[in-house]
């Protein structure tokens, strides 16, 4: 492999990656068709989501055999994050009809996967200790869970807006949609799961930075703290003041936007080398 190619792709994409790309694309098209009124395509759409999830998982496994692990870098973590989001969506779909959510989540997972695999790998991280790996792993899982909660919040806001405007046949309700109360409850539970994981990840990250003797003046550190504050505030507001529904959904999205900014800064910095 040439230096340029080596820099572009740390490990060449596996065949499973290309299968996942095709399956994600087909799943998106099928979910859009279901929203367009072709309800009979729903089982096919879910099967394609399942195929994409399997292929994506196989690609992650294959990279593991090449000594490239999800916790190795932000780039790999992104690929793992989109895998968790897809798997979470698939799991939630067994209970609720989340066609609109799927049509939004599948392209996002696809883009994240492509970004994770086909963007420049940058220089290999130095002194990536066990502490660093655990930090990256937990942060990835935490943000993935927040991503799922955010996807549900987006669906909630779309359905809520349609209902409030008396647009009963709006896109949000095509293929029936999930009940508002269930979306709100599920999103809240996910934040209860993601928050402690993210909290531990932040603590370990701070310890890792301290051990490496790095200062905390990079923009991603306060942004990560802002993410934590948003979700902490959300949990407190819900517990103490009963915040739920629209307010909770907006706060969930604000927290996730901060988390995405952190990831974007990491990614750009790594790509720049």
């Amino acid at each position, binding site marked *: 492999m040439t230096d340029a190619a080596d820099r572009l792709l740390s490990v060449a994409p596996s065949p499973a990656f290309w299968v996942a790309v095709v399956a994600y694309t087909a799943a998106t098209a099928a979910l859009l068709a279901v929203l367009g009124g072709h309800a009979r395509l729903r089982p096919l759409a879910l099967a394609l989501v399942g195929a994409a999830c399997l292929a994506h998982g196989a690609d992650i496994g294959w990279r593991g055999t090449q000594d490239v692990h999800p916790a190795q870098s932000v780039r790999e973590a992104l690929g793992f994050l989109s895998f968790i989001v897809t798997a979470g969506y698939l799991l939630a779909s067994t209970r609720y009809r989340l066609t609109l959510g799927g049509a939004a989540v599948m392209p996002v997972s696809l883009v994240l996967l492509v970004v994770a695999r086909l963007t420049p790998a940058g220089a290999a991280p130095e002194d990536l200790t066990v502490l660093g790996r655990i930090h990256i792993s937990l942060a990835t899982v935490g943000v993935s869970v927040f991503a799922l909660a955010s996807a549900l919040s987006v669906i909630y806001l779309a*359905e809520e807006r349609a*209902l*409030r405007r*008396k647009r*009963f*046949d709006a896109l949000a*309700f095509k293929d029936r*949609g*999930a*009940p*508002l*109360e*269930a979306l*709100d409850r599920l999103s809240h539970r996910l934040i209860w799961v993601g928050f402690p994981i993210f909290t531990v990840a932040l603590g370990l990250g701070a310890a890792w930075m301290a051990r490496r003797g790095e200062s905390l003046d990079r923009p991603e550190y306060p942004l990560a703290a802002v993410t934590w504050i948003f979700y902490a505030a959300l949990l407190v507001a819900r517990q103490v*003041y*009963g*915040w*739920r*529904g*629209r*307010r909770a959904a907006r706060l969930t999205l604000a927290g996730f936007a901060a988390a995405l900014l952190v990831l974007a800064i990491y990614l750009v910095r790594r790509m720049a080398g």
Partner: protein
Amino acid sequence: MTELFVVGISWRTAPVAVREKLAFRDEELAGALQAMTAELPVAEALLVSTCNRVEVYGVGKSGADPTGPVRTFLAAQRGLAAADVADVLYDHRGTAAVRHVFSVASALDSLVLGEAQILGQLKAAYGVANAAGTSGPLLGRCLERAFGVAKRVRTETAIARGAANVSTVAVDLAKRVFGNLSGKSVLVVGAGKMSTLAARHLHASGAQHIIVTNRSPEKAEALAAEIDGIARPWADLERLLVDADVVISSTGAREPILTRALFKRVTKARRWRQLVVIDIAVPRDAEPAIGEFDGVYVFDIDDLEKVVAANLAERAKAAEHAARIVEHEAGQFEHWMRTQGVVPTIRALRERFARVADAELQKTLDQLARRDHTPAQQREVIQRLVTLVVNKLLHQPTIALREAPPDEAGMRAEILCQLFDLSPAEPGSAGDQNGGDEPRDPQPALDREIAEPAPSEERQ
């Protein structure tokens, strides 16, 4: 040949004032059916009597047109003269009758397109006819097929999708917020008929706690008893709103009861839990501004009726597809009925062939049993048996063909060719030469019969 018929009256032809005069109570159905089959030229009969139709589906006795007597019978049963209802009664026969039964079962002829009730009513009427012994093979087959067609129509088209009345839409909207209504609490404010219906629908959909409040405690008590709910004093309204998940309001108040000021306190006390307010009162009970609070969703009668109208429009679109399914299925059933007309002929033909074959076989077996035969003799006996059977079977058709009047001979020959898939060779053609490689014709007697004047069957 017998055929299906329909005689009836429906919302399409008569107002309720006329329909109710011809309606039958459930306990009257069996007696009327038995009288019909006993006194009229009706072999099989079913009577369906609902709020939107009174119809007799039946099969006439052979050669008779039963529709006239059934019209008279229906009128007489209700103490009316046939002429009084002649204009509003309709009748169909044959395929038109089948198409009508299929359309009724599929709710294409219903006042509310695609409603589910009529199918249950038809099944109940079929049960009554079965119990009364007035349903027979043709009517039974038609009804069973009608139930199948109805299922197909509901599965393959959108005819039954979307709520078609205000109460069901109210339930549908509550489900969009809560999903499963099991364990949810419904507060009925006022004691109007519409709120009673909506509360019943919610209860049927799983809502377990129904609270009724009204300015008049007596009315609240009466309604609560009617819908299996609990009556609460009007003074507790604010506290009841805090606990409710769905509110159905239909009071006769001139001013709004569910005001913004009230809901400001209520939503805070509820900690912004979701609340669906169905306001079916005119003038409205709920100020539209309460819908601005987080978690509060307000729907008035116009919202509900808009949904009903949209759903009915969707059903009307689906009805075209459904009608094509009914038409196709009616055609299939008509084909089945036609084949049923020739079944006795097919059965007689098979029995006759079997009789001839059995008789000749028995004679041959007796002959073989009487003395020992060499293999060559056995072969000859069996060959003779086959020849005899073929001769006997073809004897009558051959005579019918030979002795046909000149204007029918060609047609009979053509029918025979179609029935036996024959391609008659021209005299003197190659196929008629029986070339050297062909096996020897084992039917000289038949050849003789074709060539010579026919002997009688008895002589064979």
